[in-house]
């Protein structure tokens, strides 16, 4: 092996771009997280529907999204859809692909949370005359999100890391910064290490944010289980 002399100094000129790129990564990830939780909730509820058809399509969706590479989905959205006349910006294409993919995983996490709610909760609510919508809104989903709050955090982080694939559809986020700066400065170690650190920090920020929001949402102390 040859010796290697680190020179983070040579990356300085690119740091302004990095800040902008980190912002794009964060925005893309947060939007994908919020949207995929919403869509995932819908899919999870469909998987417990009385309608066989809804259950089938929800199950199909989850299996397709969990068993195809995100990169392929991104390519379809960004490169293939324009052939049907649907032209999306890099950012929007990446957001859609990332959201669709993540929603498959979110749906499974949320479904696990739904299964964990005891049937007595449904009976108590039905006995009081709650409609299905009121029941889920006020009784079931609040309990589900408490149960799944920690596993949800894993998926949040997975989304942030997966957003690095957006560089493949020309989104100027952190991974694309890394590739550009790496190949133009030939400082591969430095750029890659910096990129890794940026992802680590972003994941930590989102995770700490999640925990803080959880404390506020679920103000209850030790009591809940």
């Amino acid at each position, binding site marked *: 092996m040859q010796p290697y002399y680190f020179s983070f100094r040579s990356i300085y000129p690119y740091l302004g771009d990095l800040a902008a790129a980190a912002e794009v990564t964060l925005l893309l990830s947060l939007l994908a997280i919020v949207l995929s939780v919403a869509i995932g909730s819908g899919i999870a509820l469909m998987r417990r529907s009385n309608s066989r058809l809804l259950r089938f399509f929800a199950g199909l969706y989850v299996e397709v999204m969990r068993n195809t590479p995100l990169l392929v989905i991104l390519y379809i959205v960004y490169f293939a859809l324009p052939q049907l006349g649907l032209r999306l910006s890099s950012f929007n294409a990446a957001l859609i692909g990332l959201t669709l993919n993540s929603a498959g995983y979110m749906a499974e996490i949320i479904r696990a949370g739904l299964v964990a709610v*005891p049937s*007595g*909760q449904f*009976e*108590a*609510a*039905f*006995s*009081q*005359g*709650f*409609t299905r919508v*009121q029941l889920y809104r*006020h*009784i079931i989903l*609040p*309990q589900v999100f*408490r149960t799944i709050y920690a596993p949800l955090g894993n998926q949040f982080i997975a989304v942030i890391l997966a957003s690095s694939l957006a560089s493949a559809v020309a989104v100027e986020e952190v991974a694309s910064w890394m590739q550009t700066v790496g190949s133009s400065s030939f400082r591969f170690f430095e750029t890659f290490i910096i990129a890794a650190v940026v992802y680590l920090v972003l994941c930590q920020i989102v995770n700490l944010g999640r925990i803080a929001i959880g404390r506020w949402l*679920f103000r*209850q102390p030790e*009591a*809940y*289980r």
Partner: protein
Amino acid sequence: MTDTVLQFDNVVKRFGDRTILDGVSTSVQSGEIVCFIGPSGTGKSTLLRCVNGLETIEGGAIRFEGTPVQAKQRSIIDVRRRIGMIFQHFNLYPHLTALENVMLAPVIVHGENRKTVEERARGLFEKVRLSHRINAYPAQMSGGEQQRVAIARALATNPHILLFDEPTSALDPETVGEVLAVMRDLAVEGRTMLVVTHEIRFAADVGTRMVFLDGGKIVEEGNPREMLAAPRSERARRFLSTISNAAH
């Protein structure tokens, strides 16, 4: 003159090929406290759960205040809004405080004003002797306390009838008394109550009628004291002697 609140006409309930209720007919008048007793697995709880459509029935009919109870129809919501149910395992909403548990249905289902509801809820906590536990979560309360909150929750919507499904069966012996005491108070108020219970003494003291079920059928019904003193059927006699032996 009394009004018929609830009418069972030849009610049949099956789970698969097992017949749980095999032609049950009886009626409940306003102000009655009907206690259902009988060996476990004879359909007492199932009968109760058919009243508010938690179970569907395969045959016969149930009418609540003149409306047919149809578990699968939208009209069931309207029936349920007028019925309060208390469960063996309380089934309080664990993410809400005791007060919020009591207030949820009046606010969400009945669309009542939050302030009015809270005032009424506080009154109910006084009635069930839990004013000091108003902000506790279910997990922080004993079984007896939880069941009393559940009673307050059922009362909060001003139900026309209360269904008690083995309300003391999951409780420690020392907390059974506090729940029964609250139920006695309700009886004194003249509430219409259907109670599935193994508390024979409660049934005798508080009940206005006792119904003995066995094998999905009503075997015998009548005045609780008379029935306890001299059951007419052999099956009721055998059941009651087992129970009273266990109690002594």
